[in-house]
């Protein structure tokens, strides 16, 4: 088991390095850089010397391999540098937004789990009845509705029916839990519904598959109580793929909520991402890409461990 963990752990490094190389060079292949964009906004005529000076200040005049080496050396010391646009340390810029994004991701996951596991199970148990159809239509609708539109509808109905809008600014939960929740509960519901749709479908098909296994027939044949069959034998085994789906979606929630954050006016990682990309803020984009892929890879790694822990066949391969 230890060898398996170690091997899987070291496999993470080349993938992350690949991500770093890819994002570094792709960003620099793109036409236009941050200095041009900054001055294009002001509209004033700027001499080439002034622009070159600014580039030199940001380290953009150095050869590419040198820039890359500097960046890697910084990362090795956990120094991600400063944002090219704001000049503030990247760790600071990310930290103030990660709080919100992480909390939202956790809340959406809770919504998704509470919806999907009971719904998926009942749909599987009542397969091809109206219950199954209702659950399936409900979950396919969740996949079809853009969560940003759901967000617009939520805000709209709160405005029309209650003449009330959720707070516009983020308050940490330990400062004022009420203000915090009354802001974040809505995006969590909008995102969680969509997220639950994926998990519901997975739960349904996993439970259906498990219910056809021989050991379920054996359990039934020996006259075991149906509820016990379901909880001990069926659900426990069906949860593996469901946990995977939930984990992977969670990883995506950290950086992928770009549009929902826009609708609810949340200053999260997704918005930071869009700003960094459109401003050609190389250092910020690089750090964010690494953060998002790191989360994804770590979640994947943890999933594999959970799998290996639950299923000895994988462990000894």
């Amino acid at each position: 088991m230890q060898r398996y963990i170690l091997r899987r752990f070291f496999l993470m490094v080349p993938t992350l390095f690949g991500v770093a190389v890819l994002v570094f060079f792709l960003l620099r292949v793109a036409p236009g850089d941050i200095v041009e964009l900054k001055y294009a906004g002001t509209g004033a005529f700027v001499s080439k010397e002034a622009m070159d000076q600014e580039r030199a200040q940001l380290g953009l005049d150095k050869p590419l391999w040198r820039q890359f080496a500097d960046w890697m050396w910084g990362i090795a010391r956990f120094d991600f540098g400063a944002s090219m646009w704001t000049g503030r340390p990247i760790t600071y810029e990310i930290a103030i937004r990660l709080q919100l994004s992480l909390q939202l991701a956790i809340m959406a996951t809770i919504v998704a789990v509470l919806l999907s596991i009971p719904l998926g199970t009942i749909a599987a148990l009542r397969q091809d009845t109206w219950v199954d159809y209702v659950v399936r239509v409900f979950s396919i609708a969740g996949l079809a509705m853009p969560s940003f539109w759901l967000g617009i509808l939520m805000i709209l109905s709160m405005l029309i029916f209650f003449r009330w809008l959720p707070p516009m600014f983020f308050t940490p939960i330990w400062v004022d839990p009420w203000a915090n929740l009354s802001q974040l509960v809505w995006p969590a519901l909008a995102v969680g519904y969509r997220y639950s749709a994926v998990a519901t479908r997975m739960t349904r098909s996993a439970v259906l598959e498990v219910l056809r296994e021989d050991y379920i027939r054996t359990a039934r044949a020996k006259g075991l109580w149906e509820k016990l069959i379901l909880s001990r034998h069926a659900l426990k085994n069906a949860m593996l793929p469901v946990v995977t789906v939930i984990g992977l979606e969670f990883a995506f929630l950290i950086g992928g909520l770009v549009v929902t954050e826009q609708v609810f006016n949340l200053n999260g990682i997704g918005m930071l991402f869009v700003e960094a990309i459109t401003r050609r803020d190389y250092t910020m984009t690089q750090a964010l890409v690494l953060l998002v892929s790191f989360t994804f890879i770590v979640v994947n790694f943890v999933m594999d461990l959970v799998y290996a822990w639950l299923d000895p066949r994988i462990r000894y391969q």
Partner: protein
Amino acid sequence: MPKPVGAATDVRGAGVSLPGWLQISLRFAQQRPLGAAGALIVLGMGLAALLADIIAPGDPQASNYALMLRPPSAEHWLGTDSFGRDILSRIIYGSRTALLVGFTSAFFGSTLGAIIGVASAYFGGRVDLLIQRLMDILLSFPLIILALAVVSILGTGTMNVILAITIPMVPRCALVTRASALAIRETPYVTAARAMGFSHTRIIFRHMLPNVMAPYLILVTAFLGQAILLEASLSFLGLGVAEPTPAWGLMLRGAAVEFAERAPWMAIFPGLAISASVFGFNLFGDSLRDALDPKLRTG
């Protein structure tokens, strides 16, 4: 329980012989009512896109400031927007954008992904390892982030949006087709083809690719809905299709949110159009998957 393939259930009774494709579709509709409902929605959308010039009540781009923010009425069934443009017409023409972006990116993304996946499985060894690592890297980005990155490099506009949506689809398709192709590589007919001295290209394209058709078709339909959603999201962010092209995501942007209280129809109907079309594609795709993939067939 689905009937075995080949056992034709005559829907209309004996004696009437229908063309083959109609028989197949009727059987599909009989066995999978949800799938048939999805197919109907997709068909309706296709017709709307095709016949937009005939059925749309007005010009989707003609602005008329005298008619700003009118609520739904007899002339403007779904109301008008902040430029006085007819919302129904914009939705009908918008289906063209959605279908164009959806079909081209789902088709090219899945096709490229299938070729890469099959080639990766066929060659195996180092090539496979290298391709898989590359796909892993691409997969570690959320769909929308990768699309955003591509758009920010290439700029906005319909063609670039198609490319931006195609690229993130490729690794997802490659992953699935590779898994199926691994099994196909071991079949006697591939060994036979190799023994006959056929070229790699011929074996991949003529012998292996046709046999991953089932997962490929499933992926295309699944990606269609996702592509339409992604296009709507990008356009909503202002990084997708550019004004004045009628596009559903674009219709939800800016004024729709600003005037949401005064003119809620601006925010409601385009979103309904997006949801209904993706719903249709997903419903149809789901039933297609059940019908094509015997492993997932539930009895």
